[in-house]
């Protein structure tokens, strides 16, 4: 039965149904949950890996490479700095890098310098970062507990996915992430939500930070994450100071902002690769490169670079009480300590001043180190052995062998690891030391 006037309502009705179906069809194809596969973690026990970490410090005019071994479990992280280059002078780092270890979990943050027998132990959670009072390159290594804590609080979980869906939904500009202990009020804004790409911004308040993330997937696997922080504001005495590190008459500044380079912000590219740990198929990071707006992270000269390799399953995790014991229980440890003592005693002195007994010990030690280096497959250990062989040879006047064997092998090992700039620095340091030695009165080389 047709009601009077219903014919005149046909057009609006058709438009309405067209609208309904258009919306349903359009939005159904855009529902993030249906098309996006978030890269989520899979339990894989305790994972160990090696890492070469290269850091350029343009403000300090320094450059260094560190060789670390990491151990990571679901609850804790740990690292040992096995070796650092260039090895002929002081490294731009808060402590002597080699022999430094870290252990951190939800409750503890421990740093130990095993060779100097010093440790810094803290309970977590720590208080928030305070004002930054460090100058001239000083920064206590145990203050990285704040970074650890902040990074853990910023972590995203599958509980946050509904907020991303909401932010990516029709007509939605952004969404709030669920509240979580330690997490500041965080808004997210989605720019891309597709099967092969996810892009979003993260905004936090007090201090205000704007970070961006872009995920790339290839064949359904996580290939890379591009991350950037371009805007930071910090509260200072009731004012908001944007993008600059404020200084006050008492020298107090706020610790939050990146150090200021020629171009600011940070852009980081993390590349991932497939790894199998105890039969679990994982996408694990293979390379991290940090640049600035004018130093592309993918370029040849990033600010910081980390290359991970040799992923493996570990039987157990180092504990807060045993970190660094690998250094002190190493069969070579006592001889290394003697070498360190003799180096401090005789370095930069004429050969004639070296005690004959010490010289004999150094000759034997140099022979042994060179022999072990020839057989040593692990790069950082080989570099360390070569360093000790070269230094011992130079101290006892055996420069000819250092020139023929130790130095070329050390240089070659660095260059083969892609550390050409570090190799150049090491070569310049050795040349400088030998030039200075030449000015020391006495029978030297």
């Amino acid at each position, binding site marked *: 039965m047709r009601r009077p*006037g*219903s014919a*005149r*309502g046909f057009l*609006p009705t058709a*438009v*309405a*149904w*067209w609208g309904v179906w258009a919306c349903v069809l*359009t939005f159904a194809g855009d529902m993030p949950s249906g098309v996006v596969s978030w*890269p*989520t*973690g899979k339990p894989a026990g305790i*994972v160990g*890996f090696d890492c070469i*970490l290269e*850091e350029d410090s*343009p403000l*300090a005019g320094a450059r260094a490479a560190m060789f670390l071994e*990491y151990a*990571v*479990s679901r609850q804790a992280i740990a690292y040992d700095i096995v070796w650092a280059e260039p090895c002929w002078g002081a490294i731009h*780092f808060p402590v002597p890098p080699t022999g430094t270890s870290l252990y951190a979990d939800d409750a503890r943050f421990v740093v130990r310098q095993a060779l100097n027998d010093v440790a810094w132990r803290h309970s977590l959670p720590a208080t928030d970062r305070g004002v930054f009072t*460090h100058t001239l*390159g*000083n*920064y206590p290594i145990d203050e*990285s507990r704040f*970074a*650890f804590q902040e*990074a853990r609080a910023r972590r995203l*979980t599958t509980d946050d*996915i509904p907020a991303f869906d909401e932010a990516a939904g*029709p*007509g939605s500009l952004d969404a709030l992430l669920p509240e979580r202990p330690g997490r500041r009020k965080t*808004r997210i*804004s989605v*720019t891309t939500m597709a099967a092969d790409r996810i892009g979003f*911004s993260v*905004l936090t308040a007090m201090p205000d930070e704007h970070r*961006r993330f*872009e995920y790339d997937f290839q064949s359904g696997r996580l290939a890379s994450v591009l*991350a950037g*922080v371009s805007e930071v504001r910090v509260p200072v005495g009731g004012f908001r100071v*944007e*993008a600059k*590190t404020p200084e006050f008459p008492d*020298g107090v500044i706020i*610790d939050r*902002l990146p150090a200021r380079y020629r*171009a*600011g*912000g940070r*852009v980081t590219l993390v590349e991932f690769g497939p790894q199998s740990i105890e039969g679990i198929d*994982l*996408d*694990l990071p293979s390379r*991290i490169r*940090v640049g600035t707006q004018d130093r592309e992270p993918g370029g040849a000269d990033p600010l910081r670079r*980390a290359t991970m390799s040799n992923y493996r399953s570990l039987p157990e995790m180092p504990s807060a009480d045993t970190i660094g014991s690998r250094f002190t229980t190493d069969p070579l440890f006592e001889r290394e300590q003697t070498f360190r003592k003799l180096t401090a005693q005789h370095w930069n002195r004429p050969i004639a001043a070296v005690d004959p007994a010490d010289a004999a010990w150094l000759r034997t030690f140099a022979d042994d180190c060179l022999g072990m280096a020839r057989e040593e497959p692990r790069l950082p250990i080989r570099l360390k052995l070569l360093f000790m062989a070269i230094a011992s040879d130079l101290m006892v006047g055996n420069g000819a062998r250092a020139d023929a064997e130790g130095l070329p092998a050390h240089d070659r090992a660095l260059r083969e690891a892609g550390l050409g700039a570090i190799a150049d620095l090491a070569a310049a340091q050795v040349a400088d030391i030998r030039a200075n030695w030449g000015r020391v009165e006495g029978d030297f080389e």
Partner: protein
Amino acid sequence: MSNRSKVFGVMGLFLAVNVVVFLVERFDRPSPRIQADDVDARIPPEALPINRIGLAGEVASGTFTGPSMVSLEMRENVDFLLTPALLVQQAITEGAIVTYPEE
């Protein structure tokens, strides 16, 4: 026009506007590439910086490199040692989403 038609008409108009708004919003999204001067149009106004130059602009125009800057640089370098471990920890933690941890 019947009441039913009026209701459908309004609904249709509403939905059509919704579709248009959605399409405009969808195709007006900024490039996902990270750019210093590319302030996301989707960021709520209260979250935008007071001064839109941002850190990149400040840094590009600034020449100040005080003694504290070298320590901030050291802070970044030291904190960066945590990053590889934090990334891997996310990858082996059930329920965690792998993301750059911003050490």
